[in-house]
């Protein structure tokens, strides 16, 4: 199986090639873009990059905002530590 790097290179290379064809206006005549669309083409890689970065920020932000801080787990553990100490001492354990 291809490594993740190979998979990425394959997809990235293919998309870049298609974009380069349109950037240099080498595509078949039937696919000639309108003047407005041809203004967009040079910035398309940055649209992808900005979209990816924006998505990443939002995903990380959402996961941060919903990350449990587990206060109850900590309090429960403190209680259990007391129980454990008492029980172990009763059984003759020396801390």
């Amino acid at each position, binding site marked *: *199986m291809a*490594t*993740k*790097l190979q998979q*990425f290179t394959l997809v990235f290379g293919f998309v870049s090639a298609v974009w380069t064809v349109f950037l240099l206006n080498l595509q078949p005549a039937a696919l000639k873009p309108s003047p407005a669309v041809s203004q967009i083409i040079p910035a398309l890689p940055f649209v992808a990059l900005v979209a990816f970065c924006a998505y*990443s920020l939002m*995903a*990380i932000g959402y*996961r*941060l905002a919903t*990350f*449990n*801080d*587990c*206060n109850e*787990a*900590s309090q429960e*553990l403190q209680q*259990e*530590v007391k129980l*454990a*100490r008492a*029980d*172990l001492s009763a*059984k*003759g*354990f*020396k*801390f």
Partner: protein
Amino acid sequence: MATNAAADKYSVLLPTYNERENLPLIVWLLVRAFEAHKFNYEIIIIDDNSPDQTIEVAKQLQSLYGEHHIVLRPRPGKLGLGTAYIHGIKHATGNFIIIMDADMSHHPKFIPQFIAKQREKDYDIVSGTRYMGDGGAFGWDVSRKLISRTANYLAQTLLRPNASDLTGSFRLYKKEVLARLMEECVSKGYVFQMEMIVRARLLGFTLAEVPISFVDRVYGESKLGGMEVVTYAEGLMYLFANT
């Protein structure tokens, strides 16, 4: 192969270094969790010659709970986590291995949940996750959580491992699966934990996750410096290019 539940035995590997305070508490909690469900178990304490005499505490525990439940396999010096697992597997008599930290950040109350999950579909690996359901972490400030979330997001994006927590170290493995993975994995530190999951996926092992709460009581030790960030990034790149 569906195992006969009554014949299952769980070997907990507890690598320790200066855990004199925590070791009796974690062992007490482990024993309580296993006894409550009548599981067959052993706790293998692998102490790397701690200066605080953790081994003396371990011997007391052994006389308290018996040699068939507490097994001591000390080593002459600090040799690292990966070799501790190899060392532990060699001496383990269970058909399942549980790895966890001895510093109380991993609570034994989750082990019965791991076992129940494993039995559901005879999974090869059950991994504790801080990033799903009721999972989470206590004792981390915002920046620590942000770094953790970012590191996890990067790993998810680059490696697409189909597991939500790659760097956790609270897991249950079938013994032969862990032994096989130990042969494959070359990384150290938490990249090692990540590599275990990624390689497990490549080898076709099945994996399930159980949400855990991670209680970081040792505030001072959990600081992440620049070097940790660099090491993590390099490990991620290594796995991205090689798996």
